[in-house]
């Protein structure tokens, strides 16, 4: 990286004004997430479409209730707008395919007040070939592939599916991941096979998983080398009452490799970690009642107080410290290793699943 300030001499780019005019044109049409977008010409679009053998008119994600459909062409246009390089397109398409398989987007979740962000994880050799960051600052900025592929999804939602904030995107607050939220697994610094390998994908292939998320929680745990303490800390955050709208808790545990190696060095497999978090994935009835989330609503199935008129009648346990299981099974706890191996800092990605459906993972189809 150059030490030069990022200002270009006017003489070296004769059409800089023209570039700005094009950016302002896109902004004036509302074809943006608020940040400047890259102007897309027909010839530039062709460069993207040349990276895939898929028909440009193929519908990737139909949205019939909005009279919209995301096609390969629209996905490519929005990838270009987002600042992707053409060779990123197969990853963008696989991410969209995974959103279709996940199902929540088709169920209009991006119109919901909850305000979920698109979230994807890339596995396999394309991480390094295309320059995806899986190490330090994995949630942060600074890496074109992560930043622009994640942004391509959000721009596709806004421009192709019509999910503009204040209109069809009714998010009460949304979350910062809605600008871009695309990470890669740090397979090189992990003691375990990747999540894609766990799901039967060949390590020579690249794959993407996608789902919708509500938040990324920071887990500060530099203090322990006792696996039981760390899984207790993780389970506590995964089961915080504030996240409970539905009866159950679920999410990705994004372990930095230091934590992963700590587990491994003490003989814990990835499965052992998931099982231990699941086993601790409960709150007492007393805790839930203190937050008014001890009962389940008829109809919506959401959590609410037992004395609410919509609550399904239930018996109050004799012992208020009776555990109420929130993590249904280890399928609700998925582990990805990412980040720098330099501190005991991990995170939890609060998803809007997977308690009722399998995780969606799709192979990246390279031309």
């Amino acid at each position, binding site marked *: 990286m150059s030490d030069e300030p990022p200002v270009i001499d006017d003489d070296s780019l004769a059409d800089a004004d023209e570039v700005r005019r094009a950016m302002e044109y896109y902004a004036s049409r509302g074809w943006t997430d608020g940040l400047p977008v890259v102007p897309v010409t027909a010839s530039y679009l062709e460069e993207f479409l040349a990276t895939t053998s898929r028909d440009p008119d193929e519908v990737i994600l139909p949205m019939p209730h*909005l009279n919209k459909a995301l096609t390969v062409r629209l996905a490519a246009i929005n990838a270009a707008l987002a600042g992707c390089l053409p060779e990123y397109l197969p990853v963008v398409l696989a991410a969209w395919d995974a959103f279709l398989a996940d199902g929540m987007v088709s169920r209009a979740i991006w*119109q919901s007040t909850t305000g979920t962000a698109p979230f994807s994880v890339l596995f396999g050799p394309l991480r390094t070939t295309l320059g995806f960051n899986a190490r330090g600052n994995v949630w942060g900025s600074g890496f074109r592939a992560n930043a622009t592929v994640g942004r391509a999804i959000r721009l596709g939602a806004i421009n192709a599916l*019509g999910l503009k904030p204040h*209109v069809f995107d009714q998010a009460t607050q949304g979350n910062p991941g809605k600008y871009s939220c695309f990470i890669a697994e740090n397979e090189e610094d992990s003691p375990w096979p990747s999540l894609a390998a766990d799901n039967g994908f060949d390590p020579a292939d690249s794959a993407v998983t996608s789902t919708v998320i509500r938040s990324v929680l920071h887990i500060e745990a530099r203090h322990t080398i006792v696996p039981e303490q760390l899984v207790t800390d993780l389970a506590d955050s995964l089961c915080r009452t504030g996240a409970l709208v539905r009866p159950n808790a679920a999410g990705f545990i994004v372990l930095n490799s230091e934590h992963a190696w700590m587990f491994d060095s003490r003989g814990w497999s990835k499965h052992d970690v998931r099982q231990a978090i699941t086993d601790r994935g409960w709150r007492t009835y007393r805790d839930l009642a203190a937050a008014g989330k001890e009962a389940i609503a008829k109809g919506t199935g959401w959590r609410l107080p037992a004395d609410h*008129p919509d609550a399904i009648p239930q018996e109050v346990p004799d012992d208020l410290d009776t555990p109420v299981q929130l993590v249904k099974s280890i399928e609700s706890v998925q582990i990805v290793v990412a980040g720098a191996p330099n501190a005991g800092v991990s995170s939890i990605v609060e998803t809007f699943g997977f308690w009722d459906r399998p995780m969606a993972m799709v192979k990246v189809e390279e031309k």
Partner: protein
Amino acid sequence: MLERAGIPAVSICTHAFKITAEAMALILGFPGYQYVTVPHPIASRTQEEIDEIAAQALPEIVRVLGAGLTIRPPAPAG
């Protein structure tokens, strides 16, 4: 959907969702579709407050229903 099937219906939403409701009607080809709007919020109100909102909305609900179908079903083929 009910009105497409020829059944009179009325949609009720809170003020907070009016823009979205109107955009939805427009995109589905029914600009100007009549909604009944009630004050926001709903979820955090007491039963008594909800009853009062319902009572206040009732005349408008009856008016929209009584006005007949806000969407006319297509004429039978042939």
